[in-house]
């Protein structure tokens, strides 16, 4: 497996007292640090500024942006679960216009690198959003697009795209097509496109393959897993949305397994060698290292941010310490190491 190339320059500048080169990249998108926020877990990003330096993160991943403003669901929208939580927000957000007008400039101002998560009800909506973002050009802070295919397909009884290889592929085709047109029109390199996978499928690799066939240049794994909590008083579903997405450390073993499966498929040649961004239950540097060891080149920190708003930055510091303690000089040296008996530390 070829690990993503890691320019040795930037890391030592960006990460204080860096003994370890933590830089990584997702295609053409270079990150000085391997931790990001997770979509929907950092609002527009600026809310975290009091607790961490947005410009020192690998990237801020925005909550999923839609074409129109969206109110989201009724409340309750969350339930705490053992070592995790359920959420059912319903993609509340201001829509792409307001996002571009208000939210993105704040992130640019803060010096953040940005991954914009997009969602839609049909491939066209995804394509339109991707086109808007791709048209921003290289001066914008947007370094990649993450495609949230774990949202309901209006044309197919609300079945989420990510549970259907064909639908996933159609969405990725629309997105990558829009990104490619913008790139050829502008002459700038195309934005990397990450397809964000749901673990709630029988054959994860088949969906991932459909996404790369559709033009995804990277994968994010994993989104939440579908769960439910019954209210002890009403004996009815606790969330207004009935079911919700389970996140947090409870699902970390599932995330590690999914990233392992994707990386194993890449190593077996079943899946193209695209970068995988890990997400799911990361709350510490040691957790991040698990996801990296099975193949993630970068890691998103979601639910942990709710307990500790500095978590995305703290996890990077802890990861650095974990690697330094093992005598690892470059993050790139441990990406996917769990697949390689005999390689690496110890």
């Amino acid at each position, binding site marked *: 497996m070829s690990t993503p190339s890691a320019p040795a320059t930037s890391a030592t500048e960006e990460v204080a007292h860096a003994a370890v080169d933590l830089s990584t990249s997702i295609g053409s998108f270079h990150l000085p640090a391997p931790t990001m926020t997770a979509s929907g877990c950092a609002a527009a990003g600026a809310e975290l500024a009091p607790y961490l330096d947005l410009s020192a993160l690998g990237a801020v991943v925005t909550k999923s942006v839609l074409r129109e403003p969206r109110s989201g669901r009724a409340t309750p929208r*969350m339930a705490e679960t053992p070592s995790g939580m359920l959420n059912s927000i319903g993609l509340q957000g201001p829509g792409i216009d307001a996002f571009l007008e208000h939210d993105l400039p704040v992130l640019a101002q803060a010096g953040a690198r940005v991954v914009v998560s997009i969602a839609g009800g049909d491939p066209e909506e995804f394509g339109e959003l991707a086109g808007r973002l791709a048209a921003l050009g290289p001066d914008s802070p947007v370094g990649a697009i993450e495609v949230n295919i774990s949202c309901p397909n209006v044309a197919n009884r609300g079945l989420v795209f990510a549970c259907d290889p064909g639908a996933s592929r159609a969405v990725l085709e629309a997105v990558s097509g829009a990104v490619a047109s913008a790139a050829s029109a502008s002459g700038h390199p195309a934005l990397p496109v990450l397809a964000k996978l749901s673990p709630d499928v029988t054959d994860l690799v088949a969906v991932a393959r459909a996404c790369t066939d559709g033009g995804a240049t990277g994968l994010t794994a994993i989104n939440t897993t579908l769960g439910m909590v019954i209210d002890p008083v009403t004996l009815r579903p606790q969330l207004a949305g009935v079911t919700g997405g389970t996140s947090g450390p409870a699902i970390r073993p599932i995330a590690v397994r999914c990233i392992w499966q994707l990386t194993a498929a890449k190593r077996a040649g079943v899946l193209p060698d695209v970068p995988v961004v890990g997400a799911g239950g990361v709350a510490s540097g040691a957790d991040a290292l698990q996801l990296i060891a099975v193949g993630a080149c970068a890691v998103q920190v979601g639910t942990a941010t709710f307990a500790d708003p500095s978590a995305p930055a703290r996890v990077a510091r802890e990861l650095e310490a974990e690697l330094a303690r093992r005598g690892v000089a470059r993050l790139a040296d441990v990406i996917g190491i769990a697949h390689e008996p005999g390689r690496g530390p110890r």
Partner: protein
Amino acid sequence: MSWPAGVQEAAEVVSARPVGAYTHLVLRAPEAARRAQPGQFVACGTGDSGMLLRRSLSLHAADPEAGTLEVVVAAAGPGTRLLAAKRPGDVVSTTAPLGRPFPLPAPGTPAVVIGGGYGAAPLPWLARVLTTGGSRVVGIVGAASADRLLGTSAVDDATALDGIADAVVVTTDDGSLGAPGRVTDALPEVLLELSELGEPAVYACGPMPMLRSVHTTTREVLGERAQTWLAVEESMACGVGVCMTCVLPVVDLDDDDTPTRMLRACTAGPVFDGDALRWDAIGAAPHLRGGALVPDDAVGAPVVGRAGGH
């Protein structure tokens, strides 16, 4: 934003003592103590690895000199049970101060501060600030029964409004202490009395049905002649504005189109203008235990047939 952002501190428990049915905790969090204003809250970790989310607690007091925050905890579920059982020397992970404080009225404005159960926790501090501003302040504290009361010297001196507010009215639903009935039964008389001094400001903290009743009662008694500031208690996952779980339908009173948006109680609140809350949508679905619906006219409200994602 005109108030300072929260700060994270590992706060040592300086003291812990029972107050009625509750636990009064003093936490050493010097930076938060320097910044905090009445109406704000602290998000506390439980210390249990299986319970990720912080628990929000109203600030009862903040002492910038001593570098301490004070809270009053009701052991409601597993997390608050752990917090209520903390002992001196334990360390609690805190983020504070969070949320918008109570807006203060023009100096001299008469005010009533109303608390239900542990909702009385922030009132003595608020009353102190108001009286310092020259307000006449009447406190009303109530609970279902005497053991759930807070804010009166009949329960505990150190956390009482007595000696701070100009008068304190106590009610219990079962009549076990003070006047039998609810806080809102005592409210009309207080409003009428205070309105002789000017248009009163009404501050309330407690469960949503109580807040609704405070708002309705105020409007019934004084018409539009009083502003209500209600500190809501929505279920919160993060407390810092990043999760969107704590939203309420709120009208933008400053916008002539008065659009309704689902606003975050943790950052836009927890203190809201009672006139801005969409009472028709709040608590409208009994099977959701006080959850709020999205009004059809809200910005981005669901279009029938369009399903939402998580």
